[in-house]
């Protein structure tokens, strides 16, 4: 079963649908033409580029090239996490990289090598989209974990200090905020699993069904990806926060101001 192609005139027709929200927004007095234009243009150009390199990646299917592609995704995710969490890259670029790289490699390798078992484990058709999807969700989780950890620590600075004064080690004193941060990071994934299929059809499953897969196969892949996302988000946020505990404090267990970007 082949998916029906969308031809060029139909693509143009598709963009035409945007005129409706644009008109409505304009009527209610929201002047967002510029933002909408930029958004649609960026989406189109970025996806076109992704199309080009995915096509190349799939055609060549070279293990080194696939590996390099994953490495690039990891680096981009690394910097994006730190920027969004308001942390200075110079202090945390390595720790966040270690956290996400180890957890993504673990869960992707587990899924591809042990579960899916393609002829070549490096097959771009499997590792590139799967690693990408897991990484995307892991990124969200790590942003929340870091952001929440530092905001809880700063909000409860006196409590943290009190714990230190009562004989707690750095780890013992920071543990409440550490737990809070991990919980906030993985809660969306747990809640997402609990409502999966009820509220909306998950994106990957929809894609596979459109691509001609049997619904059962699509369901199994969706379960696989959710379990991997849950695993990698948990592992990555715990490793990342543990490394942060070692980096972001001075020898007297006081949070170093200079590691956090000024708002």
């Amino acid at each position, binding site marked *: 079963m082949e998916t029906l192609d969308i031809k060029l005139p139909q693509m143009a027709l598709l963009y035409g649908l945007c005129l409706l929200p644009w008109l409505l927004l304009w009527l209610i007095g929201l002047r967002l033409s510029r933002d909408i234009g930029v958004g649609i243009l960026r989406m189109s150009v970025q996806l076109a580029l992704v199309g080009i390199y995915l096509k190349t990646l799939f055609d060549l299917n070279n293990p080194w090239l696939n590996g390099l592609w994953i490495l690039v995704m990891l680096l981009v995710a690394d910097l994006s996490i730190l920027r969004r969490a308001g942390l200075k890259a110079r202090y945390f670029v390595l720790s966040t990289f270690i956290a996400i790289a180890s957890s993504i490699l673990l869960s992707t390798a587990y899924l591809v090598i042990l579960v899916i078992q393609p002829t070549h484990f490096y097959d771009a058709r499997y590792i590139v989209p799967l690693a990408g999807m897991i990484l995307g969700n892991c990124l969200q989780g790590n942003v929340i974990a870091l952001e929440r950890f530092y905001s809880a620590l700063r909000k409860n600075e006196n409590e943290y200090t009190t714990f*230190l004064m009562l004989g707690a080690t750095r780890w013992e004193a920071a543990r409440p905020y550490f737990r809070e941060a991990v919980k906030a990071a993985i809660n969306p994934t747990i809640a997402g699993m609990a409502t999966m299929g009820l509220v909306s059809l998950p994106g990957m499953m929809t894609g596979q069904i459109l691509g001609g897969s049997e619904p059962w196969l699509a369901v199994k892949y969706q379960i696989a990806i959710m379990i991997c996302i849950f695993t990698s988000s948990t592992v990555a946020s715990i490793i990342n926060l543990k490394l942060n505990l070692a980096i972001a404090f001075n020898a007297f267990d006081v949070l170093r*101001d200079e590691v956090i970007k000024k708002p």
Partner: protein
Amino acid sequence: MPPIIRFNQVSVTAHEKTILSDISFALFVGEKAALCGKSGSGKSSVLRTLLGLHPLKSGTVYFQEQPLTPESIQIIRSCTAYIGQEPILGAESVREALLLPFQFKAHRGHRPTQAQLLEVLQRLQLPEDILSRDSSRISGGEKQRIALARGLLLGKKLYLLDEVTSALDAESKQVVFDVFSDPQLTVLSVAHDPEWMDRCGSVYELEAGRLTQVRRHGNS
């Protein structure tokens, strides 16, 4: 006998602002001392510096003649109780708050018995039923006495008190004075209260991060 605390030409800056400059003083075991001065003069910073919360720019802080270093900070913190204006109890109920430090590795295995809890409450004239009360529902003065009780349960010898008497009524204040009449306990306090300062053996006056005056009373 060597001093328990000694500041030797200590200067501290935070966010490029000088908060303490060239502070030198010594405190001996059993001594009760007060730091006074306008707000922002650096009184609380002296206490925080001793606890390793401000990095030193120059000079040395000694605790039992050991310089303050990342290695010695655990010892200093384990011997010292810091009690502020509104101490943080850090647990749901008062009982949990009193037992909180005994969850930490440093104090695990020294958990006080019920009898010891009651004894310390009595010493601070706190009612027994306060144990089951919610931490958020007790007054500032009670919180200070509970923080003090926690210090006593931990066997702390040095008490850093930041404006402690401000929230206490006359009776509670007397209770706190009585506790600190113990010659084993050393007190370094930040105070405005003249009655408290009268009871302190030495009073250090600070102005803009400098030590400007030292008054000594005979009773120490």
